């Protein structure tokens, strides 16, 4: 169990793939890692790939929304992709579906950010 954070870059897009379980305990690690990566100021856009995320609760909503605010302040775009149905429900419930863009796969999410930047 636990959470694994994998980071890749393509042009101005920081691609973050989360696998495992995102809760209050593991959220700290994601927050620190992403704040650190974003502070390098190489990237202006963020793609969050949740394909291998097997569990998430409200702590995950908080981290995702926090990074959205951070990237918006830097003038960038954020896209979330490959969200599993159980996690999809949480995003819907919280209204975050209306706040940022969701895509079926990583390529579409990257394209969406790339075109806009």
């Amino acid at each position: 169990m636990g959470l694994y954070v994998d980071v890749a870059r393509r042009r101005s897009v920081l691609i973050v793939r989360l696998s495992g379980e995102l809760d209050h305990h593991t959220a700290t690690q994601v927050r620190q890692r992403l704040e650190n990566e974003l502070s390098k100021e190489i990237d202006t856009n963020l793609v969050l790939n949740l394909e291998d995320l097997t569990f998430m609760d409200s702590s995950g909503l908080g981290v995702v929304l926090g990074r959205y605010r951070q990237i918006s302040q830097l003038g960038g775009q954020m896209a979330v992709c490959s969200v599993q149905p159980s996690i999809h429900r949480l995003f819907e419930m919280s209204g975050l579906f209306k706040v940022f863009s969701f895509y079926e796969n990583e390529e579409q999410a990257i394209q969406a950010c790339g075109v806009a930047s």
Partner: protein
Amino acid sequence: MSEVHKNFMELSFASRSENESFARVAVASFISQLDPTMEELTDIKTVVSEAVTNAVIHGYEEKTDGVITIRTYMEGHKVSIEIVDQGLGIDNVDEARQPLYTSKPELERSGMGFTIMENFMDEVTVESQAGQGTKIQLVKHLKTHQQTIQH
């Protein structure tokens, strides 16, 4: 003869964030004897995670010397889960239960915990007293296999 299946478990643990995953897995594994669907199991894991996280963050403000107790009762297809802390308690429960209400926005909380509990469970009861602690009771009627377990 068959009768309504009844069972019970109780566990207590330190108010440490690493116990959040332990707590939801323990309850899910106990419930699995009722043969729930994947969706029901995920719902239960999520709400246990919400209530335990609230006890850790709000009840004990991340101090690790608090105790959190979970009791899980089964009766037929009804599952009741109690999550109890002896932490700070909640001044205004009605306000706390409002969607998007959080007393800790600086910690990137979204204020969705109670809303998720209410959406995923059939009943949510909150008993709390400032300075005394909080007890959350969550009830769900599993819709799976209408069989009674043979004795």
